[in-house]
């Protein structure tokens, strides 16, 4: 018998994507960080001329291994020509919960958009 056998798992719904898995009696973890490899955020440039775009994250012992892992996980089908990896703890982000005040300065400056200006239709190339 394996550990966990015979546990009452209660209702089983079709969550899990690849097939139904139990939804009750399943722990969700303590969220305590183990001393495992650090987390790196991965950014991929899809092709020349495009920005690097965030695609996900990998764990790795160091940055070089993170690059290799990112290549294996995120570019198995030529999805990229360049990869950046950044330690997740080094990313500084605005908080979505501060969204309104943080981005408010741009809110009342409609004159920064070309559509703000009314030009007669017959004027060409504008």
């Amino acid at each position, binding site marked *: 018998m394996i550990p966990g056998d015979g546990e009452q798992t209660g209702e089983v719904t079709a969550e899990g994507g*690849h097939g139904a898995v139990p939804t009750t009696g399943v722990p969700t973890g303590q969220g305590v960080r183990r001393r495992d490899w650090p987390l790196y955020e991965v950014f991929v440039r899809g092709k020349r001329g495009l920005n690097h775009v965030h695609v*996900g994250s990998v764990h790795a012992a160091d940055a070089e291994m993170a690059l290799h892992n990112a290549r294996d996980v995120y570019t198995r089908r030529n999805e990229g020509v360049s990869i950046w990896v950044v330690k997740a703890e080094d990313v500084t982000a605005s908080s979505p919960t501060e969204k309104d005040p943080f981005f408010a300065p741009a809110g009342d400056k409609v004159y920064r958009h070309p559509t703000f200006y009314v030009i007669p239709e017959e004027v060409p190339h504008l």
Partner: protein
Amino acid sequence: MTATDARSPEAYAREFQATIDADQRIEPRDWMPEAYRKTLIRQIAQHAHSEIIGMQPEGTWITRAPSLRRKAILLAKVQDEAGHGMYLYAAAETLGVDREELTELLVSARQKYSSIFNYPALSYADVGVIGWLVDGAAICNQVPLCRCSYGPYARAMVRICKEESFHQRQGFELLLAMCHGTAAQREMVQESVNRWWWPSLMMFGPADGDSPNTQQSMEWGIKRHTNDELRQRFVDMSVPQAEALGITLPDPDLRWNAERGAHDFGEPDWSEFQAVITGAGPANAQRLAHRRRAHENGAWVREAARAYADKRAKAVSA
């Protein structure tokens, strides 16, 4: 949340639901109800575990593939499953869980994985049938998840669904080749379909009446269709595909219902489903033992790489 943010808990909850109702995505650092977070951790982690354990049934056939072409295809497919697991663990981690802890919950059997992977792959026809039916059923489940309310999960599913399409098509092509082969090969395909059909239908979970959590998941925009809707869609898709292969789906009650514009079909054996998902399936013990062994055997590699990285970091700073 910061000290300058004085909104009430009720305001956060209203904002959260309004975001979902507007078909916008919830992102990692947004406020979210604890139950939503836990539901997602359960779902994404166990989805990831399913992909990782899902490498095993077919993986055993890599060394015995019938040709170099099939071997290269199967290797790529199994590697994809590992990749899918990684996309999903990365998504789960945005909810504040630790990947190493999720692995521990899997190998100690406290978190589960899809029941389908507890059935053994007994012949090379199974590689084809797993691609066609098992991945086909997974696609039915996963396509709506591309619009799941939780951004990182939805984005992972977009990547996965693109790759699943290759999985399903290579499986069907393999079966097509076998069905155009000898009588013995056709018999192998039929025997394999007979074993995988019902477990594939079970992948959608119990009937809607026995799935009390569905409603909440739908209100949260995690789930878009009920178990029975997805199962029906899968059956209707599979019937013409089975005809193209010239094989019979093992259900005497399966027939077209013109009135409903859909196929009627029989009831899966739900007692088998409950048994398999809670640990008593044909291969549960083997699957977990294999995963545990791989994890333990890799411990020294993880430690050595960490020690090497620490040493190099010290050398640089010295």
